[in-house]
């Protein structure tokens, strides 16, 4: 050690001491920052810690982490609430085979306070389930199955209700009717955020015109915004990706807007599939082994997973020290880890892909024409299904170009996951990355570095999957798996190529017009010059001009 270094060390020590003393002397008065530093002065013991260790209620957790669910700003909170209710309504209608009729209403209650009312003509919810669905987080019908639907986590609507309750103290109101023979039920619910349990404030039967459906009202603090990220834009996009939906929207103090149904066909029914081994992780495997009815490991793999035959099942178990006949319940985590490793090494056919329900090229085109009228060109591409980590997915791209759409601006990118518009975190989304990675210039469209293409274009990218990989629970951006980006790029390229052909055709037409104008400009001068040199008559001169114009227009040469 050099003397200089010694010195500096001593100095540090010297300054450290007084600070420590000061803190000890006046711990309560210290500024917040200082407090944080000195807080662990009370030495914890295992006993004292044990007194603090208790179950963390999910609702409590999410109260503190509301951003994870998309309630991090007043504007977003309002939109997310509508989104959760609409998603649920559409899921329920489709599952019940009903063409959805939806009304969405936002009422201004006070400054920054709104009431959101969403009503559907879906199957309704049985009376006993209503409290838990709306008053308990992580309660739903979609989490434990693999099937293409908008909701998947069982948090959505109860989180929205909880947000409303937290900001206004008001309960969630639900009305639901399941058929003509039963009356409609009305509920007022709040969530006990500590226990994550519903508390029924009021319950009664009510009069309903419709035979079945559900109506959800949530009062919340929020900010109402119009424009690109507004509610109306969101609903328009919803209509775009759901041509079978009829939607009426009434904003606060606004004229009602009606998004008409563009197609009478319900989407193909999405089938439920078993998980594919390639997507399984240790925790999930353990849970499945605990819950299964199979008594033997081999049978478990064959019956709980898709595409696993006897050979594959044997190969998964081989070398782990487990037997084909071992009871799945008895498998310890260390062994489960070995099983997962073996799965990765085993060749298993891709999962079935008939479980997906894309919008479809024809319906997408019809929808684009209806929701973005006046464009010069429409294109829709539905890719064949593909697989990421054992999960089937399918990519669709739609675009509307030119015509009445404003030019010279950046392309409007609309992103969809299982027909749900994604409004936030565009930059983090796989759809955005795929659009950026596509070479639009080769299709005759300008694109500056690091920006969306500059063109009078609306571009929509849709991913349909039994499990959409979002970057977070708020379901705002699709995670960038290589397989997904690749499929998106292929779809974008295909539609880009077709669009390029259209643009070039337009370019040719403009060239033709330019050519004609050019000819008309200069040919008269040839007439004049020949008239002056050869002393032609007016008729002769006119003949020169007419004949030459005709000759040149017929020639293709530029």
């Amino acid at each position, binding site marked *: 050690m050099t003397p200089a270094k010694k010195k500096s060390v001593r100095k540090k020590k010297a300054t450290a001491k007084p600070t420590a003393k000061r803190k000890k002397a006046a711990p309560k008065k210290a500024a917040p920052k200082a407090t944080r530093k000195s807080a662990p002065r009370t030495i914890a013991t295992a006993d004292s810690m044990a007194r603090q260790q208790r179950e963390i209620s999910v609702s409590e957790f999410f109260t503190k982490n509301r951003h994870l669910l998309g309630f991090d700003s007043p504007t977003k909170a309002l939109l997310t609430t509508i989104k959760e209710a609409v998603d649920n309504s559409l899921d329920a209608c489709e599952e019940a085979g009903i063409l959805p009729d939806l009304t969405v209403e936002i009422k201004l209650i006070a400054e920054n306070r709104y009431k959101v009312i969403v009503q559907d003509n879906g199957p309704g919810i049985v009376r006993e389930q209503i409290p838990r669905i709306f008053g308990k987080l992580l309660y739903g019908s979609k989490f434990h199955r693999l099937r293409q639907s908008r909701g998947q986590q069982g948090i959505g609507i109860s989180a929205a209700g909880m947000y409303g309750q937290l900001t206004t103290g008001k309960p969630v109101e639900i009305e639901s009717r399941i058929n003509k023979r039963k009356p409609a039920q009305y509920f007022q619910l709040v969530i006990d955020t500590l226990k994550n349990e519903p508390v029924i404030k009021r319950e009664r039967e009510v009069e309903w015109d419709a035979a079945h459906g559900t109506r959800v009202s949530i009062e919340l603090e929020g900010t109402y915004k119009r424009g690109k990220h507004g509610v109306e834009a969101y609903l328009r996009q919803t209509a775009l990706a759901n041509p079978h939906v009829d939607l009426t929207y009434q904003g606060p103090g606004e004229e009602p807007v009606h998004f008409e149904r563009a197609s009478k066909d319900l989407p193909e029914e999405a089938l439920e599939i078993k998980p594919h081994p390639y997507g399984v992780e240790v925790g999930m495997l353990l849970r499945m082994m605990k819950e299964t009815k199979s008594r033997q490991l081999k049978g478990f793999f064959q019956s709980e997973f898709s595409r696993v035959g006897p050979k594959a099942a044997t190969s998964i178990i081989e070398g782990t020290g487990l037997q084909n006949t071992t009871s799945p319940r008895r498998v310890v985590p260390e062994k489960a880890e070995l099983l997962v490793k073996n799965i990765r090494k085993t060749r298993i056919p891709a999962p079935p892909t008939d479980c997906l329900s894309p919008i479809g090229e024809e319906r997408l085109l019809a929808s684009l024409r209806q929701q973005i009228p006046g464009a010069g060109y429409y294109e829709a591409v539905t890719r064949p299904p593909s697989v990421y980590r054992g999960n089937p997915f399918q990519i669709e791209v739609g675009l509307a170009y030119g015509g009445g759409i404003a030019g010279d601006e950046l392309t409007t990118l609309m992103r969809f996951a299982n027909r749900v518009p994604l409004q936030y975190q565009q930059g983090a989304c796989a759809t955005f990355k795929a659009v950026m990675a596509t070479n639009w210039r080769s299709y005759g469209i300008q694109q500056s570095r690091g920006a969306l293409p500059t063109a009078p274009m609306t571009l929509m990218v849709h991913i349909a999957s039994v499990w959409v990989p979002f970057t977070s629970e708020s379901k705002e951006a699709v995670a960038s798996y290589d397989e997904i980006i690749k499929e998106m790029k292929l779809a974008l390229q295909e539609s880009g190529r077709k669009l390029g052909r259209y643009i070039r055709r337009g370019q040719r037409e403009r060239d033709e017009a330019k050519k004609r104008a050019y000819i008309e400009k200069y040919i008269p001068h040839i007439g004049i010059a*020949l008239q*002056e040199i050869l002393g032609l008559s007016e008729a002769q001169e006119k003949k020169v001009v007419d004949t030459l114009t005709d000759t040149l227009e017929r020639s293709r040469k530029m």
Partner: protein
Amino acid sequence: MAKKKTTSKRTSTKKTTSRKKAAAPKGPPRKKTATRAKKVVTNTKVVRQIQAEASTVHQKILKKATPSMKFPIRSLANVIYKPAKGYFQMKGKKKERTLTVGTVKTFAQTLRMMAFSKELVETDDIATKREAYYVSKNWDDARFNEQPESDTVMEDVEALFGVNREQLGFIPEEKGGDVAGQLVVIDHDRETGEELRIDCTRFGSGAYSIPISVEGLRFETNAKFILAIETAGMFQRLVKHAYWRTAQCILISLGGVPTRACRRFIRRLADDKRLPVYVFVDGDPYGYSNIYRTLKVGSGNAAHMNEYFCVPQARFLGVTPDDIREYDLPTHPLKEVDIKRAKDAIKNDPFIQHHKQWEEALQKQIRLGVRVEQQALAKHGLNYVIDEYLPRKLANVKAFLP
């Protein structure tokens, strides 16, 4: 032949600019058919050529075919050098300008230029290149945006008919060059036709200006040679000290690349009086391959007229690359353009290629990497050029570069 030139016979100085006639009710503005009373047809040959070309175009159009005109290519690539003839001769390569959508504008402009030329010739009028450019401003969409555009079209028409622009009624506006020394130029008064005798020894520190047209001039001289000088500065020095008297010669200032009139003047004077022509320019590639070469054998751009605008008897006095060491002259480094020009000349200029000596001189200059100005001789005293340089050079005329 050049002697047929119309401009020498012109009687008025009327300008043709902006004689805008009332525009026709529809279509681009036009001139009414020229029906001016004073119709002095002086160069029927050019008019006939113009009419023939226009007629060919007309017939093609009526046959629903696309008309075309064949223009000689105006570049060094289309000339050959035959020392026996003494000038750059056109090889006859032509480019065909077919009327297409892409060429319709130039095609129309060329025809309108021809019509304008015909009118000038028929009415015995003239227009400068700049005036022609301004006249085109009446042509609506067919107008020229910049003068170089109209100059190019004019030069194309010249080459098309193999005539000098004066024969088309167009005159240049550049000055022709200055003359001092033992020469009497015999010209005529424009009004009276009276003979004018211009004594070039009597301009004091000034000089006689070569007119734009030199065909009518006659000469009297007892000079032994003509000294053509690149820069006005050197010319001034020699005039001031009446070097023409000392050396019994005629001094002519070229003022850079000599104009056609200047070249023609020197040529006629040298031919007439059987005088040798010595050329004294800066020692750089521009002086060699642009000024000297153009004076001696003409240019690639107007090759169809080189026969008249060349001075085959010219010989190169200096400043040569060898002079730099010989006379211990101060130099400047060659610029990139100089080096490029020298290399281009070695590669593409038929004159330089023909004369090994010139090729070697340019190679040497590139090797030395320097250039030298005429006036660098002043390093040894202002009159060193008169007392030493020129006498020593003129003592050995045989050593001049070809």
